[in-house]
């Protein structure tokens, strides 16, 4: 049995696929931005000595780390609108889900980074009269963030891969559009292969960028560790 490969119908749909890729990138960027901010907030809450800060943060982090993202997405898309009584577009549901989901992971990255800074750095800052907040912003976080960059890149890549789940709630990302093209052209083999390769190229490029950053930090690491 020999199959005649024909990519022409797929390439004819390139504009639609490009639009899908654009939506994938947009969703990733928005969720990443919210996820980072929320993740830092969760990490700071979790590190707080006050239980009414640390417990809710711990709860959110645990729940979103231990339940499958697709279940979360369905919950926010199908269940939440009925509870709060508002319409949810697929995009909003996806942004909410993936922001919180990635923030749970980012929170642990932030927490590990902050805890990796020696106590002496806090004391050095407090000893010249800084408040805890100033010490965190000026002394601890700048050092922690440099150490966290590899873990951040890894999580950002995971996030981009996770965004494919929105295809299941009919948001027109790359995967959803590829599926549409496959059905229209009757060329699922070519279409899904192209889609997989596009994902690979984009995500692999980010991976390489992350690794280069990591290497550069490892080489320049002398100046951050004494």
């Amino acid at each position, binding site marked *: *049995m020999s*199959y005649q490969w024909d990519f022409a119908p797929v390439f004819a749909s390139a504009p639609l696929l490009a639009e899908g890729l654009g939506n994938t990138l947009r969703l990733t960027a928005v969720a990443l931005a919210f996820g980072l901010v929320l993740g830092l907030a969760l990490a700071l809450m979790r590190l707080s000595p006050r239980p009414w800060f640390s417990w809710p943060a711990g709860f959110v982090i*645990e*729940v979103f*780390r*231990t*339940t*499958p*993202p*697709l*279940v*979360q997405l*369905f*919950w926010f898309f*199908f*269940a939440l609108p*009925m*509870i709060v009584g508002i319409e949810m577009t697929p995009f909003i549901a996806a942004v909410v889900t993936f922001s919180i989901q990635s923030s749970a992971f980012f929170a642990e990255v932030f927490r590990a980074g902050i805890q990796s800074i020696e106590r002496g750095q806090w004391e050095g800052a407090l000893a010249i009269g800084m408040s805890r907040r100033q010490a965190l912003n000026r002394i601890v976080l700048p050092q922690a963030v440099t150490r966290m960059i590899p873990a951040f890149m890894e999580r950002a*890549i995971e996030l*981009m*891969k*996770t965004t*494919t*789940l929105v*295809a*299941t709630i009919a948001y027109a990302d790359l*995967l959803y559009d590829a*599926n549409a093209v*496959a059905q229209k052209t009757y060329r*699922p*083999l070519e*279409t*899904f*292969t192209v*889609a*997989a390769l596009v*994902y*690979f190229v984009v*995500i*692999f490029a980010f*991976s390489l960028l992350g690794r280069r950053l990591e290497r550069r930090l490892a080489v320049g690491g002398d100046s951050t560790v004494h």
Partner: protein
Amino acid sequence: MVWDFSSVLANSDALIAGAIGTVRLFAICLVSGMTFGLVVGLGRYARTRWFNWPATLFVEFFRNTPVLVQILWFYFALPIVAPFEISPLSAAALGISLNAAAFSADIYRGGIQSIERGQWEAARAIGMGWGQAMRRIILPQALKRMTPALTSRAIEIFKSTTLASTVAYVELLQQGKLIASINFNPIEAYTTVAVIFFVILWPLVQLTYALERRMKRAE
């Protein structure tokens, strides 16, 4: 609004069928993914490029594409060229296993590389071959160090099984969808599914934390 779980409970047999499907898929992916991952990991560690390059290519490709894309490729694209039918279970198992293999390969490689050269040299010095040294000296030590990472990978595999619902494989989320559409109760149905996953996985997550803590103390 009033939460009413009775309609979900009335369909508990559907949920049990889903749970069995989830566990079956998880078991297949765990065993095949981690076993194949070991082969690939050793391949990446090998000095000969005939093992090294294909293994590296495999890892890079499957680490850097979304699992859902892989599952859909196996389900919709592969049957065009394959001389056999692909069931939802096979498509999901293939996608998730290969992805798990790529990730665990890197864990194995990292674990093996973390063992000091002195251990190799000591094994060689008493006359062991490469295979013997790997099996008797290096792997047992490396596996211990890898346990936390492998456990979190297992948790990720368990979460990935929900993706099989996109090809209508009968697992927990798929059954949740079914219950929600029959009874118009998405709140209770999806909350139940989320709670089931949380109850199963939370102890495992705590276990990885404990393992990591113990490793740190041991260092």
